[in-house]
């Protein structure tokens, strides 16, 4: 089992003939992801990486039964691509692009809600069900199937942690990237219940950071969960009012501090690690 993404999930890659799209589509196919089609209006009718390239997502849905779309187009075209995928009827939409205007993300999010589509991202590394399928830009080799679910705001930091878990013999059930933007489709609060319900998952690692209140909200849920939650929160040394790489990683007017997040999670019973390299031992001990 796993959340959101399975070995049979049929995927269409939007922007498959672009530099980034092509590279990652190839990586996904190599990992076992069932990529059934790509979209690239200017290359419609050709074949790329052995899959058909269409002018629209609709064709991929109608002809090849695509259920999930992953978007690799420039930020300026991302809203159009997202609306296209949702209107065409996919159930899962992964938005890789960074630098989407927040109002665009809000519109995409709302359209997804109206059509019952699960939005992951934007500005996410995607999600992976180790050993089954990946839908994103994460390095494939660091993951192992196993009992730990990971939900992360940050890509590379989650890779660091996933790799350390794998090294410690702790594989992963599902790893989902929330995305580094202030407004994203799936947050801890949306994903924790899926992890709680997933029979394969035995413990959950949250990789949070400064900015917003996603971790404080998560704490409310952690309180009710039966599975142990271990967290690492980045940005303790970040000054107020500065964006730390992610558009969403900013302490504004005293809100979004690490202290607030740590306190909420600890009060809810999560184990909050001081440093990323402490995670695997904490998970090991939580699993008993």
């Amino acid at each position, binding site marked *: 089992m796993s959340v959101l993404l399975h070995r049979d999930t049929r995927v269409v890659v939007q922007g498959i003939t672009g530099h980034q799209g092509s590279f990652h589509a190839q990586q996904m196919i190599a990992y076992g992801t069932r990529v059934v089609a790509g979209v690239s209006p200017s290359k419609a009718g050709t074949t790329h990486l052995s899959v058909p390239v269409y002018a629209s997502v609709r064709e991929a849905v109608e002809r090849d039964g695509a259920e999930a779309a992953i978007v690799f187009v420039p930020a*300026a075209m991302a809203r159009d691509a997202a609306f296209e995928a949702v209107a065409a009827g996919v159930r899962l939409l992964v938005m890789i692009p960074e630098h*989407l205007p927040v109002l*665009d993300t*809000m519109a995409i999010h*709302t359209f997804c809600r109206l059509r019952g589509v699960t939005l992951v991202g934007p500005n996410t*590394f995607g999600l992976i069900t180790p050993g089954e399928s990946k839908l994103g830009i994460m390095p494939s080799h660091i993951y192992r199937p196993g009992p730990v679910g990971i939900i992360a705001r940050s890509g*590379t930091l989650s890779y660091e942690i996933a790799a350390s878990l794998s090294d410690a013999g702790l594989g992963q059930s599902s790893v989902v990237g929330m995305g580094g933007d*202030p407004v994203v489709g799936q947050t801890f609060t949306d994903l924790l219940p899926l992890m709680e319900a997933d029979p394969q998952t035995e413990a959950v690692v949250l990789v949070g950071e400064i900015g917003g209140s996603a971790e404080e909200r998560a704490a409310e849920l952690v309180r009710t969960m039966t599975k142990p939650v271990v967290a690492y929160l980045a940005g303790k040394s970040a000054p107020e009012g500065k964006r*730390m790489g992610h558009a969403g990683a900013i302490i504004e007017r005293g809100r979004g501090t690490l202290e607030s997040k740590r306190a909420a999670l600890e009060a809810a019973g999560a184990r909050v690690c001081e440093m*990323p390299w402490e995670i695997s031992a904490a998970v090991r001990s939580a699993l008993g």
Partner: protein
Amino acid sequence: MKLYEYLAKGVLREAGVPVPPGRVCQTPAEAAEAAAEIGPVAVKAQVLVGGRGKAGGIGFADTPEAARAEARRILGMDLKGYRVEKVYVEGKLATDRELYVSVTVDRVARELVVMASAHGGVEIEDVDEKFLVRRHVPILWNGEGYLLREVARGIGLEAPWAAQFQDILARLIGVFRQRDAELVEINPLVITGDEVIAADARLNIDDSAVDRHPELERVEEGTELERRVREIGLAYVELDGDIAVMANGAGMAMATLDAIAHFGGRPANFLDAGGGASVEPTAQALDVLVGMRPRVIFINIFGGITRCDDVARAILTVRETRGIPVPLVVRLVGTNEAEGVALLRAAGIEAYRDMAEAARRTVEESRKGRDR
């Protein structure tokens, strides 16, 4: 992108929000001229930080001569680290009451949220929650009055001010949407006689949307170094320590700072070299770090999409071209790790596998540097 008050007010004025008459001035003479035109004025330092008033960045003048003097005092002053280059000379308001109103994004609800208070004129973080009215703006909201009425009533406004306030609020939401703002704030929104008017204004534009607003004047923010690094396309924040830091990915870069602090060191910067950076930008980034003349440089790479051999090549390039005159600590794991480590070793640089060990070593090096 934060707009200066005078730019923010220009946008608001265009949107039909009442603001006092005003002129932006760069010299005391211009300020005197503006005051001659306007009458009694406030002379306000144009800087991108709050709390100008307390810091002496605002003065009042009833005559052109007084305005000239105030401008002379304020222009060139240092306000929280920013040199004042311009003042805004603006008609002085007789203030009966000061309100607060803003529009911003609620990340959790994924909607805009209006905040308002009858206790304006102080920073919003200092306003007691119980005096704050919060209302979400549904994405389908298209001017429906209920929202405006609820906010006006919530802060206890009555006729004749309630209707004006509601009109202003609707326009502020409009400005937010049309300009891709991330904050529209009027503080204080002043009641003077029968009128409601914006005495101060903040308008921050979503950085990701600035490109689709060519109509807005560009405002550069941050130190010179920050601007220069951002122009390369990298996320960079200047800090006050002595350890220069580079990592790939925002989360890794933050965690790297935290690790340095954990071992008692003081990072000099935040630098995200990107989640999939190749030789060229990595070399450029490293070049910047060398130029900062830190005590140590710490490069912390988890190679996912980033290839460790590319990072090694970037390091060697910089060392060969401009030289790296300070101790360098490199932590390098992940994709093509063996090649990267071998390249560095051949050049006499030992790379760490373990982040904790590397961070500890970095901090030790920085202490050594201090002892030198």
